[in-house]
C-alpha cells in the first residue's frame, strides 16, 4: 500500500462527496444548501488540484484539467453567493440559489470524472 495513493484517492473522493452533498436537495431552496458545505468543497477541491500538480502522464494531465474545471465551477458558485449576499444585498432568492447550485453541479460532473479516472487508473495498474 502506498500512502501517497491513499492521500490522493482520499482527497479526490472527498472532493466529490462534499460537492455532491452540497448539490443534493431542491434546486432553488436555500435551506437545502448550506454555505459551509460549499466552503469545504472549495477547500478540498483546491487541495486535490495541488496534489495533481506535476504529473507527467496523459491521465495525470486529464486529472489536473478536470480538477481545474471543478475549481472554476465552485469558485464561480462562491462568487455568485458573495454577489447576492454581500454586494447586491438581494439575499439567497430561489433563482440565485438555483444558479449557485447548478454551477456546483457542473463542478460535480468534473469531480465524478476525476473519480472515474482514478478507478480506471487503478484497474489498469492492478493485474
Amino acid at each position, binding site marked *: 500500500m502506498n500512502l501517497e495513493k491513499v492521500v490522493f484517492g482520499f482527497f479526490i473522493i472527498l472532493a466529490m462527496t462534499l460537492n455532491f452533498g452540497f448539490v443534493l436537495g431542491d434546486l432553488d431552496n436555500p435551506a437545502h444548501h448550506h*454555505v*459551509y458545505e460549499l*466552503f*469545504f468543497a472549495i*477547500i478540498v477541491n*483546491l*487541495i486535490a488540484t*495541488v*496534489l495533481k*500538480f*506535476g504529473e*507527467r502522464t496523459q491521465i495525470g494531465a486529464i486529472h489536473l484539467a478536470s480538477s481545474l474545471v471543478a475549481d472554476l465551477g465552485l469558485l464561480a458558485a*462562491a462568487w455568485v*453567493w*458573495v454577489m447576492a*449576499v*454581500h454586494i447586491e444585498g438581494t439575499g439567497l432568492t430561489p433563482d440565485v440559489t438555483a444558479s449557485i447550485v447548478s454551477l456546483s453541479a457542473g463542478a460535480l460532473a468534473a469531480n465524478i470524472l476525476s473519480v472515474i479516472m482514478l478507478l480506471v487508473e487503478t484497474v489498469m495498474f492492478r493485474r
Partner: protein
Amino acid sequence: MHNTLFMILRRMRAPLIFLIVSYAISILGMAQIPGIDAEGKAAPPMGFFHAFYVVSYTATTIGFGELPGTFSEAQRAWITFVIYMTVIVWLYSIGSILALLQDPALLRAARANRFAAKVKRLRQPFYLIAGCGETGTLLMHALDSRNQQAVVLDIDPERVGALELGEYHLDIPALSADASLPESLLTAGLSHYYCAGVIALTNDDRANLSVAVTTKLLRPELPALCRADSLETAANMASFGTDEVVVAFEVFGEHLAMAVNTPGHHLLYEWLTSVPGDPLALPLEPPRGKWVLCGFGRFGKAIAHHLKRAGIELVVVEATPEKTGCDNCIEGSGTEARTLMEAGIDQAVGIVAGTDDDINNLSIAMTARELNPDLFIVLRQNRHANAPLFERFQANVTMQPSSIVAHEFLSLLTTPLLSHFLDEIRARDDEWVDMLLSRIAAVVDNSVPEVWDLEISGFHTEAIWEAMRDGTPVPLHTLLRNPVDRTEDLPCIPLLLRRDDTTMLLPRPETLLQLGDQLLFCGQRRGLNQQALGLYNFNVLSYLLTGMDAPGGLIWRSLEKWFKRSPASSERLGS
C-alpha cells in the same frame, strides 16, 4: 520548457497545500466566532466573504486593522492565532519558491531547455562541435568569421561560460554536457534538419570515439570529423566510416616535412586555412641537411616517419630506446650537452625537441642553441599553461596540437573544394606555387584571405542563370570585376573550377561559365561582398557584361529586345 514547469509544480505542492489548509482553518474560525456591533452588543459571526477578506489582508501582513467593524475579544484572540499561523506559512511558501528558483537542478534544466529551444530555432546549416577547449575555440572563431553557425557542447561549465564572454558575431548556443552521451548530442541538434556535420574535439579519445559512433549510427549521412591522439583510436574511428580523423602528431610531422621540402606549398596551405583577417604567416624555410630528433614517442615517430620519407638525414636521441622500440639511436634524454654532441649537433641544421615534458623540451632547445646558435629549432609544447615560456624562447616552430588540429579541420570545413584544391597543388612544382603566392599576397593586403565557393545554378546565382537562359555567354571575368566600376578588378583570385569530374586550377578569366560549375575563390572580404552583387541582381550583371545599365522594367526590356533585332545593337551587346 515543460520539464521545468512540471518540476516547479511538483515542488510547489507542499507549500501550496499548507497555504490552503491554513487559510481554510483561519476562515472557518472567523466564520464561527461571534462579533460585536457598533454599540458593543453581541452580534452573529461574520460571513465567509468577510472572513476571507480579513484573513487575506492578515495573512499577507498587509494588516488594514479591524475591518469591516470593531472585533470582539474572541475574534481578536483568533486573529492573533491566525497572524502567527498564516504569516509563517506564507514565509515558508515564498521561501520555497525563492529556493526553487535558485535550485541548481532547476537552473540546469532551464539552461538545457533554453539551449534546446535555441538549437531548434536554427534555420541555417550548423556544425555540432563537441569540446571547446583550445582547438574548439580556434575553430569557432574561424567558423564565426566565415559566418558559419556552430553549436557547442563541453563537459566543463567554465569553458562554456568563457564562450559566452567570447566575442562572436553569431549567437552560438552552448551547453555544458557530456558529449559522449547520445542524449546530449541529440539535444544539441544531431537529428536537426540543418545539422551539417559533427566535429569531435574533446581531449579524451574515448569521448571522441563515442561521438563518432553515435553520429554514424544515428545520422550515417552526416560527416563526422574527429580528433584522435593515438593511431589506434584513429584506426578504430576510420573502421566504421568516420569521414575525417585528424591525429595532431601525424599532421604536424607531415607539415614539417612539407615545410622542409616544399616551403611554398606549406605557406600556401597556412594562408588558406588560417582565420581570415589574421596577419599572414611568414615563410618558415627550414633548412635541408642533418636533423636531430629528441624523443621517440608518438610525436617523434610521426616526425621521423615523415622526415625520412622526405629524404632527410635524421639522428634520433631517446632516453629509453628499449621501451619505445627505437633501434640504432643515441641513448640519453638530450638535455645534456654530451648526448647532443654525440648526436652531432655541431654539423646539424635543425633540432626537434619532441619529448612529452615541456621543461625537458625547453632545456634541450636551450642547450642545443648554445652549442650551435644557427640551429633551426622545432619545439613541442604539451601544456598550454607553459605558453609564456615558449613565447619567450622563440623557437622557429612551436608545435601546439590545438592549432594544428584546428587548421586541419578548417581546411576540411570551409568548403570541400578547398581540401580538393590543397590536394591538387601537391602535384605542382615550386615555381607554380610561388607565382600563386605572390598573386595572393598582391591581392590580400597582408592579412589571411577569405576563401569561398560558388555554384552556378538557378538557386545560388539567379542573375547568371537568367543571362545563360537568354543565351548570353558569361565569362569568368564577370565575377572578378567591380560592380561599381567594371574597369576595376575585385580583390579576389579564382583558385579552382570544377565542372562535372574535371577540375581546372587557376581558371583563366576568359573561361565561359556553365550551369553546375563550382568555383573556389580567395581574396578580401570586400571582394566576396561585391562579387555577390552581380550574382543575384540582373541589372548589375548586365552592367558587368556590357558596361551599360540594362533597362529594368518590362516595357523597356521588350523595347530593348525589339531593338536587338537590328544587327548594330546585337554587336554592341557583344553577344
